[in-house]
């Protein structure tokens, strides 16, 4: 070592004077081969380590590193799809999704927030401080404080600037028509997924598919460029219903008035377009406000028109009579003895409320005679009657694409006893929903054929299925016009200016397998008779203000709804008597 040090100090001057490197005495110095090899080995090992590291970074963990890099500036943005609107037949919006905000928190970060600000936050979110504290007292890394907050409120929350409180975009469904349309339109949950009625039935097409895009963001959060092609979101398709909000409003308000007047438990109404089979209005009471579903009960949710069955009672009589006419047992003017107003079949006795004596077939419908109908029914085969009921839709699941629509019940004809055949001829021992009853009257209102119903607006003419002949349909229309006339069971169904036809029904309710003194009053009719446009079916459950007959309770609702709906549809009056209708009451106008 000593030698080396003295030599280097002696040579430094010489080297500076330009001695070639190859002559440097350092090179001639003898080093032990072990040490030089060791140095060589170490250097080579270091080179290998570098190369290995390079291969490791460039080759093996390239994907991982690129991902890490991207995650620092590439962002995937969710592009949410908007749920389709629901509209009525005139393009009136019935349901629409609008963006709102969800307010959420990271409880850990909120802990240090000043009390005063939290108090203000609670006030903004419309909750008490204790509720807010309870939500924030959580181990989770993420808690929703409130969902579906209006944008201006959410902006105010952001302005408070509390650490750990964030907002997120989401959608809220608005129902501008509120309670009147609730049972047809239905509603969605907080995630904007359909829960009831049309919202549920058309969930797939309404929902749409969310898209996304990958972008590079700069330090300020601006999007700088797209990394790959944008996956555009596919918005949900709009749904146009067959409903007419004007007629729906008329039906709903009239039903509500009548229900209050008769102190009824529930009520339902349905209005059908005879030409197209479209449902123009459908209302149930009690109902609910789809915008505020805080205290929702099962009774409010129930879509009685579709899901509740009842014994239709006398509204079934026209089918028995139509079948008798078709089979040629009777003609409209054939006489039938109904005295003494009682009839014993086997061990059971059926009867009329009044003894009518000899009636024509037309009058059997006009006066709604059970005996007359039963006598005709007993001449028929059970199978014929069963086929008649089934072909107009009784006991059949309606094909309307509405969740929860029931089929009702018509027992198989093989098990019918004569007494049952007789009572079924006037609508006892059968159950049906109001919608089925309304649809069944298509054969009378149209010229003997029936068409499928639709909740969606259609432009195509439906294909009818013939059940009875045109001649029979005409004869039945005449009988039902008599029933809804001065001499019939439902004079209150008459509408000034329009000819109407229909049939009342009053049935006892069943409770625990026995008939009790509670009633369901119903009326099914159509108008104008000269060229029918609308079928309107009304049902009032347990009217308990003194009146309970279909002719007193349900028929007046039919009359007012018919009068207003035909006016709303611009249907010309068709009374043959006169073109000028004299005022029933003096004019009361303030000008």
């Amino acid at each position, binding site marked *: 070592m000593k030698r080396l040090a003295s030599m280097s100090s002696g040579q430094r001057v010489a080297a500076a004077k330009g001695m070639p490197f190859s002559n440097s005495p350092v090179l001639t110095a003898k080093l032990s081969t072990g040490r030089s090899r060791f140095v060589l080995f170490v250097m080579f090992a270091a080179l290998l380590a570098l190369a290995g590291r390079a291969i490791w970074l460039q080759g093996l963990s390239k994907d991982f590193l690129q991902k890490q890099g991207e995650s620092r500036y590439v962002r995937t943005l969710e592009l949410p799809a908007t749920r389709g609107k629901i509209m009525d037949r005139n393009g009136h919006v019935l349901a*629409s999704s609008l963006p709102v905000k969800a307010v959420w928190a990271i409880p850990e970060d909120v802990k240090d927030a000043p009390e005063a600000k939290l108090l203000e936050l609670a006030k903004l979110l419309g909750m008490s401080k204790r509720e807010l504290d309870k939500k924030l007292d959580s181990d989770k890394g993420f808690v929703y404080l409130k969902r579906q907050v209006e944008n201006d409120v959410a902006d105010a929350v952001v302005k408070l600037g509390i650490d750990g409180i964030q907002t997120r975009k989401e959608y809220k469904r608005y129902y501008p028509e*509120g309670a009147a349309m609730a049972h047809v339109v239905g509603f969605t949950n907080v995630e904007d997924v359909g829960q009831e009625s049309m919202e549920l039935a058309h969930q797939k097409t309404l929902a749409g598919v969310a898209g996304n895009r990958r972008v590079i963001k700069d330090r300020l959060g601006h*999007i700088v*460029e797209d990394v790959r092609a944008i996956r555009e979101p596919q918005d949900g398709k709009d749904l146009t219903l067959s409903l007419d909000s004007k007629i729906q409003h008329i039906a709903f308000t009239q039903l509500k008035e009548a229900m209050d007047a008769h102190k009824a438990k529930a009520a339902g109404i349905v209005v059908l377009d005879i030409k197209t089979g479209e449902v123009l209005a459908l209302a149930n009471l009690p109902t609910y406000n789809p915008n505020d579903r805080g205290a929702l009960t099962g009774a409010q949710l129930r879509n009685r028109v579709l899901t509740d069955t009842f014994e239709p009672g006398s509204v079934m009589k026209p089918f028995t009579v139509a079948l008798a006419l078709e089979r040629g047992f009777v003609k409209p003017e054939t006489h039938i003895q109904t005295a003494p107003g009682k009839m014993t079949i086997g061990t059971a006795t059926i009867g009329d409320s009044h003894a009518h004596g000899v009636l024509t077939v037309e009058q059997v419908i006009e006066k709604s005679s059970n005996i007359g109908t039963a006598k005709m029914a007993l001449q028929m085969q059970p199978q014929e009657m069963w086929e008649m009921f089934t072909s107009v839709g009784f006991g059949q699941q309606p094909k309307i694409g509405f969740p929860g629509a029931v089929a009702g019940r018509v027992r198989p004809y093989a098990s019918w006893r004569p007494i049952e055949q007789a009572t079924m001829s006037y609508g006892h021992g059968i159950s049906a929903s109001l919608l089925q009853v309304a649809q069944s009257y298509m054969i009378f209102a149209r010229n003997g054929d029936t068409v499928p119903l639709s909740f969606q607006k259609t432009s195509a003419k439906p294909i009818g299925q013939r059940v009875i002949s045109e001649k029979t349909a005409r004869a039945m229309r005449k009988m039902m016009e008599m029933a809804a006339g001065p001499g019939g069971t439902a004079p209150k169904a008459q509408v*000034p200016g329009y000819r109407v036809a229909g049939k009342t029904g009053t049935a006892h309710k069943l409770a625990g397998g026995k008939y009790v003194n509670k009633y369901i009053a119903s009326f099914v009719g159509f108008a104008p008779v000269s060229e029918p446009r609308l079928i309107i079916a009304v049902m009032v459950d347990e009217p308990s203000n003194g009146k309970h007959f279909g002719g007193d309770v349900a028929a007046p609702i039919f009359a007012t709804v018919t009068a207003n709906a035909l*006016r709303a549809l611009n249907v010309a009056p068709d009374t043959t008597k006169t*073109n000028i*209708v004299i005022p029933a009451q003096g004019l009361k106008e303030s000008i």
Partner: protein
Amino acid sequence: MNARVTSVLALALVASALFLVNAQYQARRLFIELERAQAQKRQLEIEWEQLRVEQSRLGQPGRIETNAKRDLNMAAVTPARTQYLTLGAK
């Protein structure tokens, strides 16, 4: 000669590099502008939806009826006080 070609090429290279920087800058600036316009479009669409809902809410038949009765003293027309004229009748 050689040195001149080199210097011209060097100048051209510098100029092209500067143009590239400028082009990239312009692209990003325009992209941000496009983004802003698209955001505005979405915002306007939302507003349009809100207005349609509002129109529907204000156009509820029930609301129109009560307002017409209360504010304008109107009454529903009934066939009883309607005079129908038949075209071509004497």
